[in-house]
C-alpha cells in the first residue's frame, strides 16, 4: 500500500512539475486515492480539470485554481462593491462574484454612533444611507452555504465612497496583501478591492481610511458628523488632482493589458515610468502600455 501510495504521489508530482497548468478536460490523475476538490470533475474514476488553471494539492485533496473567472469571496477580504438593490433590512451589493453579496442593515454604521439599535425609522430611510448605484468598500463577514457573501462596514475604514473614480479590472490580477488601501504620490488614495473593483480618490485628512489606527478615537468625531459618512457631494477637487487620478487609472489599465498582477509597488513604478509621457492620453496606446510596464518591472 505504502509503495503504491508513493508511486501515485509521484504521478501527480509529475503533473505539477510538468507544467503546473492544466486546461479544461485535461486528465489530472486516474488514481482513486485522490480527493477531488474545486475545479475538477470525474468520469469513470478518472479526475479531469474543469477549468484552465494551476493544480493545488493539500494532502490528498486536489483542486484546480482557475486563472480567470469571477471573484470568489473569502472571509476577511476588503472589497469594493456597488449597491444593486435595496431590500428588506438589507442591501444587495455587486462585488463581481457569481452572486450579489448581502449587506444587512445591522452591519453598517448608522449616524449617531456605532452601538445603536436599528429602529424602524432606520429601515424606512435605508435609501438615504445607501441607494442603488452607490459604491462602498466593505469587508466580507461571513459566507453562506451557497457561496454568497455577507458584508459589513462596521469600521470607519469602510463605507460609502466619493471624491474619485472607479476602475474595474479582473479579480485574478489583484494581489492579496496585508492592506488594500494605499496613499500614492500626488495626494491620491487608492482602495484596491480584492474583487478587482478599484476606487481612486483624492486623499483628504479626514479620510478615516488613511489612518486606521485612529478608529477608536474617531468615534466621537463620527457622532458629531452624523450623516457626513453617507454624503453624496464631492469635496472640491483641483484639476491637477483629477489628472493624476486619471493617470493612475491609465497605469492600472496598462498593467491589466500586460496581464501583470497589481500591487502598490508595481503601480508606483508604472506611474514613475509613465511620467515621461506628459500627455497621459498617450498611455492608451498598446505599445506605450507594454513599454511602461516593461520599464517599471525592470526597476523592481
Amino acid at each position, binding site marked *: 500500500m505504502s509503495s503504491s501510495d508513493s508511486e501515485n504521489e509521484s504521478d501527480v508530482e509529475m503533473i505539477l512539475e510538468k507544467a503546473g497548468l492544466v486546461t479544461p478536460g485535461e486528465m489530472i490523475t486516474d488514481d482513486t486515492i485522490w480527493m477531488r476538490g474545486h475545479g475538477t470533475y470525474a468520469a469513470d474514476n478518472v479526475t479531469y480539470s474543469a477549468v484552465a488553471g494551476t493544480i493545488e494539492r493539500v494532502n490528498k485533496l486536489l483542486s484546480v485554481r482557475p486563472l480567470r473567472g469571477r471573484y470568489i469571496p473569502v472571509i476577511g477580504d476588503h472589497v469594493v462593491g456597488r449597491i444593486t438593490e435595496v431590500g428588506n433590512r438589507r442591501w444587495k451589493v455587486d462585488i463581481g462574484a457569481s452572486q450579489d453579496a448581502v449587506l444587512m442593515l445591522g452591519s453598517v454604521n448608522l449616524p449617531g454612533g456605532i452601538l445603536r439599535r436599528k429602529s424602524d425609522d432606520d429601515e424606512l430611510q435605508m435609501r438615504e444611507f445607501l441607494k442603488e448605484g452607490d459604491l462602498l468598500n466593505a469587508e466580507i463577514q461571513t459566507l453562506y452555504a451557497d457561496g454568497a457573501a455577507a458584508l459589513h462596514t462596521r469600521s470607519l475604514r469602510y463605507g460609502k*465612497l466619493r471624491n474619485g473614480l*472607479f476602475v474595474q479590472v479582473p479579480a485574478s490580477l489583484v494581489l492579496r496583501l496585508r492592506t488594500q488601501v494605499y496613499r500614492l504620490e500626488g495626494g491620491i488614495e487608492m482602495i484596491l478591492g480584492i474583487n478587482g473593483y478599484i476606487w481612486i480618490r483624492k486623499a483628504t485628512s479626514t479620510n478615516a481610511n488613511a489612518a486606521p489606527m485612529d478608529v477608536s478615537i474617531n468615534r466621537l468625531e463620527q457622532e458629531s458628523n452624523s450623516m457626513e459618512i453617507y454624503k*453624496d457631494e464631492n469635496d472640491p*477637487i483641483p484639476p491637477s488632482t*483629477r*489628472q493624476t487620478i486619471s493617470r493612475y487609472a*491609465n497605469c492600472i489599465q496598462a498593467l491589466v493589458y500586460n496581464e501583470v498582477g497589481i500591487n502598490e509597488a508595481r503601480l508606483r513604478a508604472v506611474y514613475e515610468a509613465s511620467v515621461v509621457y506628459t500627455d497621459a492620453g498617450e498611455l*492608451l496606446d498598446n505599445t506605450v502600455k507594454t513599454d511602461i510596464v516593461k520599464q517599471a518591472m525592470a526597476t523592481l
Partner: protein
Amino acid sequence: MKFSVSELSYLRSSLISSPPLRPDCRKPGQFRPVESEVDWLPFTNGSARVRAADGSECIVGIKTKVVARSEGSLIEPSVDITGYKDNDPLPNSLAEALRHTLNACPELTAQLILTEKYAFRLYVDCVVLSFTSHPLSLLSLAVFRALKSTRLPQLISSRDDTLVDEIPQFNDDWDAAQPICTKWSPPLVLLLAIVGDNVLLDPTDAELEVAETALCITWKNNAIAAPIKNVDIGSGKNVGGYNPKVLLDAYDLVQSCAAQVVSMIVS
C-alpha cells in the same frame, strides 16, 4: 450600468471644466485605439472586424444580389446586437442610421447600377458582439472598413439593355472583380458628446451618462457631409438644450480629427 451620485458629479465637473478632463486623459478629439482586419469572412464580397481596447467588437459582412432596379432600395443594412431582441429600438435605430448615411452617398449607388434594368443590391449585415459605450461609432468604422474591401463581380454582358432584354452575365474569375471604392471614400459616422460647452469625440458610456446630448457627424471624402443629427442617448440626467455655438466647435473638432481617425483604422 448604474453610477453613483458622487461618481456622476465627479465626471460632470471634470468634463465641463475648460479644457475638459476626460477620465482616461484623452484629448477632446482623441479616438480610443481600435484594431481591425478585413476580408476574413468567406462567401462575402467584403467583410471587416473591428475591436476596441475595452473589448467592444463588431463584425460586418457585405453580400450582393442582382435585382431589378424597380425593386426599391439598393442598400439594405441590418444590425444585430448580441443579447438584444430583433424589435429592440437600439439595433433598429442603428440600422436606420446606417441606411440613412449610405443612401445619402450617391457614389455608392452609382457603383451598384449595372444596366438600365438591373442593379446590385448591397446587404450590409452587422453584428455587434459586445459593446460598452454607444456602438454607433464602432459600427460605422466596421462598415467603412468592409466597404473599402468590398469587390463586385465584373460584368461581361452589355451595359445597355434598353432595347434588348438581357440578363446580366458576370466574369467567373473573382480576381477580375472590381473594388467598389475606387476614387471615393465611404462615409464614416462619428459620435460626439456635448457636455456643457465642450465637445468630446468617441464618448465612453460614463461620459454619455453626464452629457446633454450626443451628435453624429458624417465624414466623407475628407469633408463633413450629411447627415448630421442628434442621437438619443436615453438615460442621461442632464439631457437638455445646448449652446448653438457648440455645433460650430463640433464641426471644427471633426474637421481637425477625422482624418486621423481614418488613418488609424486603415493602418
